[in-house]
């Protein structure tokens, strides 16, 4: 199986330079449906699903490999090499922002620019560092995930790939957007919220854009500032859009910011 098949990759657009969109924790490549088409005129647009999400090959999920976001970064490198991406643009949302940073360090030739939407190198506060979550909150989250009650499966029902216990429910609620395997999502949450990649921000060679949302519970302003400060060559843009997903809630503003940067 090729990396493209494993990641359900779709390549569109007429440009010669590639722009790769990476979805974050909680959804799949559908996240980019309002943004990606805007770049098809100038770029070769690459969309893909991380293993465990969307149309990816679930059997490729290896708990050990994906216990760290380095596993996801290796996938990005493998996929982009297979698609012959060189000096392209990487657009990563949420945890995929840091996945892109790691991929760019593993294979510097792949990308010329990085666009980081709501990035966070560490979600837990640490001494002077403000991550947005106290250690107690992260523990509460992990405990919440571990006590995986049936209701939680119900919570996930709209976003799971079929529900073995209640197929009629899945039929009713499952949609073509944002499919994730609940068990893998749980592990992905653990990987994401326990990660600390602050050190990896140092020495990034690529030009970078930090897109910061307003009122983002997941990645608050202080974190965006930190990322901007640590990245050697970065631009910081504060969006008017609120929440954690500006590419869905304010696609035009997001597109404009990216275009301006490029």
């Amino acid at each position: 199986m090729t990396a493209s098949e494993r990641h359900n990759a779709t390549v569109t657009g007429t440009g010669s330079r590639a722009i790769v969109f990476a979805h974050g924790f909680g959804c799949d490549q559908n996240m980019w449906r309002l943004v990606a088409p805007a770049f098809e005129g100038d770029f070769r647009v690459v969309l893909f699903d991380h293993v465990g999400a969307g149309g990816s090959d679930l059997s490729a999920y290896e708990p050990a490999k994906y216990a760290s976001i380095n596993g996801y970064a290796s996938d990005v490198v493998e996929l982009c090499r297979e698609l012959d991406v060189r000096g392209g643009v990487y657009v990563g949302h949420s945890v995929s922002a840091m996945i892109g940073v790691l991929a760019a360090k593993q294979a510097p030739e792949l990308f010329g620019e990085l666009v980081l939407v709501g990035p966070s190198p560490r979600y837990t506060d640490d001494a002077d560092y403000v991550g947005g979550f106290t250690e107690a909150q992260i523990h509460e989250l992990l405990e919440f995930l571990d006590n995986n009650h049936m209701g939680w499966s119900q919570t996930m029902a709209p976003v799971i790939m079929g529900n073995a216990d209640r197929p009629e429910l899945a039929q009713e609620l499952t949609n073509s957007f944002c499919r994730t395997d609940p068990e893998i999502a749980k592990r992905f949450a653990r990987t994401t919220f326990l990660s600390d990649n602050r050190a990896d921000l140092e020495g990034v060679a690529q030009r970078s854009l930090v897109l910061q949302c307003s009122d983002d519970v997941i990645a608050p302003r202080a974190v965006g500032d930190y990322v901007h400060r640590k990245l050697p060559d970065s631009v910081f843009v504060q969006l008017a859009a609120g929440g954690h997903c500006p590419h869905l809630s304010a696609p035009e503003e997001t597109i404009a910011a990216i275009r301006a940067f490029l």
Partner: protein
Amino acid sequence: MRPLSSTGPIGDAAAGEDLQDLFENAPCGYVSALPNGQITRVNLTLASWLACDRDQLVGRRFQELLNIGGKIYYETHFVPLLRMQGFFNEVALDLVRAGRSPLPVLVNAVERRDDDGRVRFLRITVFNASDRRRYERDLLEARRAAETAGDALRELNLSLETRVAEAIARRMEAEEALRQSQKMEAIGQLTGGIAHDFNNLLTGIIGSLEMLKTRLSQGRLDDVGRYVTAGRDAAKRAATLTHRLLAFARQQPLEPRPTDANRLVAGMEDLVSRTVGAAITVEVVGAVGLWTVLVDPNQLENALLNLCINARDAMPKGGRLTIETANRWLDERAADERDLPAGQYISLCVTDTGSGISPEVVGRIFDPFFTTKPIGQGTGLGLSMIQGFVRQSGGQVRVYSEMGHGTTMCLYLPRHHGPGDEAEVAGEAADHHHTATGETVLVVDDEPSIRMLIADVLTDLGYAAIEAEDGAAGLKVLQSQTRVDLLVTDMTLPGGMNGRQLTEAARKVRPGLPVLFITGYAENSLLGNGQLEPGMQVVTKPFTMDALVRRIKDMLAQP
């Protein structure tokens, strides 16, 4: 509030009031929110569930009401979903309540858009899921308990198997120890019995030889024949004893012949009478027209004598001993009872008027080494050897006994359809007429004394004898031009070539060469279960020179 009419139209004000009531007191929580989740309106039901004022809720974002897991999943999963498909349904979340446990809820949300497609507000509906969550928790606990119980049961089963296996192993060890001790006891009985019998016979043989030597040295040759006869008889009985032992082990090649049991019994009557003594009356009842049976007559004689001795021992104060023969038709049922195939049999029964045998003992009398006699007075092999011989002859032994009245032991033997034994006797007699005409016999045996005896006997009879000590030496003779009319070879030979292999090599250079095998019990397998090629015969050790000579003459007389 005015009572509502169920029949007439209601006014606008009343309808508004009705809808207001429905909104505020609906059995679910209602929230209107801005696209970013900021609450603009909330009903009384939700406010009361959250135990706070409505004012405290308006202005806050809906996701702020959630616990930390809910907040994160709401932002990462449900907001994108709502944006992309316009709604989400039945999402299980926990609403945080100040000073109280979180409220489990199911949440539905839908975007309300204006004509231009812009989101005007979110309608969020909240269902109290406390009962459902409790039910789910109970269900999960029950499932976990069932799994734990299942695990425990599997564990128990595994350990049960181990425990049973251990118990069985211990039991088998105990049984093995018991068997071993029984075996040792049996060997004690056996060695005692055999030593007793053999010592008697050896005493007779040694004594006879000593007397013979004395008389020869004295030159008194007139009555030496007595000692020769006595010594030979004792040696023959010793040979019979080893035959009986081998028959018991079913190693003894039987020599079945068509036999008239009546004649055999008649020939034994005198011996039986003398053996059992005067206190016991012996009566023989021979059936008229008794069928012929195919058995080894010597073994049958032994068996009969053995049964009579047992009968004698059961009647220490005297009594009556009856030997009876009869023809028997055993139908399926009768045959089943006797563990035989249905058909025609003869019975040879020995009945005593003695003490009888208790049922417990009846169950054991055929066990090897079982005896009621003291050590040294019996091998305990008698009945089991009889049974071995009779079973080997296609028959069965049955016991009928009544305590205080006596015992009947019956041998059932299958009828033989064929010529009687007279012809055999006539043939034997004819054989003796063959006389030597310079025939040469090659004798191969590693035991010098046997080789010497055979050669001497042959020379006395006018034959030429060539001796060889092993297969290689024998083969050398056979491969030469030397005349050889008969090969007599021991089955067991030293030097890597046994009698059978020697024979195969011999017949390559001399096809059809007559061969007489001499064999002990152990080489029966070498004979291929008695399947001998034409021109081959067997004589078993120990044998008398007479028997050997008869056999050699017989073979040389064949055309």
